[in-house]
């Protein structure tokens, strides 16, 4: 809010999350999302833009990440900060992280899609399926026989 002086020229866009909360976002930030961009191009966004698939807490996270990402382009420290934040979230609250990924995918924000995928990939590196399940709280839906068979078939990956 401190930067009102230089952002007066940019347009403010109003967005409404699925649980009815209204967000006011600068145009430059909102246009990171290809979904919102397309809606603006189609000229049906002169009022409040509804985002029926995103809840308020998740949308808040997305905006934060968008802003940081815009700042980070020429700032290596910011890049590190954002990265450690993402990893922190992945460790402490994997459920929110999956929601974030889905929301970013729905809003079609290319840069964040790549970032979140990269963090998850880094996170998965060198971990066993059992550890991944435990950390991300994924339910194991294989029967013991199926699992044994798959493990046997892919034994090379566990050498």
């Amino acid at each position, binding site marked *: 809010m401190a930067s009102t002086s230089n952002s007066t020229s940019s347009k403010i866009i109003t967005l409404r999350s*699925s649980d009815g909360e209204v967000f006011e976002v600068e145009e430059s930030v909102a246009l990171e999302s290809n979904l919102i961009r397309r809606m603006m191009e189609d000229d049906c*966004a002169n009022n409040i833009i509804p985002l029926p698939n995103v809840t308020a807490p998740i949308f808040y996270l997305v905006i934060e990440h968008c802003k940081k990402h815009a700042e980070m382009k020429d700032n290596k420290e910011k890049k590190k900060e954002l990265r450690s934040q993402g990893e922190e979230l992945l460790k402490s609250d994997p459920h929110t992280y999956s*929601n974030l990924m889905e929301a970013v995918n729905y809003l079609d924000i290319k840069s964040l899609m790549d970032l979140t995928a990269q963090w998850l990939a880094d996170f998965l590196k060198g971990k066993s399926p059992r550890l991944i399940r435990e950390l991300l709280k*994924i339910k194991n839906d294989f029967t013991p026989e199926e699992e044994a068979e798959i493990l046997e078939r892919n034994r090379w990956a566990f050498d």
Partner: protein
Amino acid sequence: MTRQEKWRARKGVEIAGWKRSWVARDVGIYGNVKRRRTEEEDKRIRVRTGSSKAEEITRAEAAAAAAMTPHKPMAGGNIFFMDDKEIIIVEKKTLAQDTWRKRTHGVLKNVQWSDLPMDLLMLVTERLTPADHVRMSITCKSWQCTAPSILFSKIPVLLFIKNHTSNFFDPSSKKKHLARLGLRIVG
């Protein structure tokens, strides 16, 4: 009476040809189309959004639905086309429809890891080494469909024959592995 006409009679819809459908305002926006929105519901929406023109909002919402389609071919479910003010909804059953329904019926509250769409998982898997990819893909059933095939992996692997068995060399881990390709090498 044809099947289509029967359907129309049952639903009480007057449409000429299958391409014409209900106007966006009349369609319960993202879900399956079961009934028209009542006057009262219309009013409630108008009050909730604080707009005197309910139509503007529904148009925006309709466009949101339309904008969703082009990059969501894998999500399956209903397909929306934008045709001036009209939306055509084609029912298409796919494997992912359950997930789709969860997502389209109101709030996206509980996306589990296993619900993530395939294209999103692809973004992750293309950043992994073959061994990591295999380990990730066997954590649960819905991730199993991302399982890599050695023959089509992004990182090239070297296949070779040794002692009558097929082997491959994974350059990312610099290790040789026994490949189970289902090929029998007759020697």
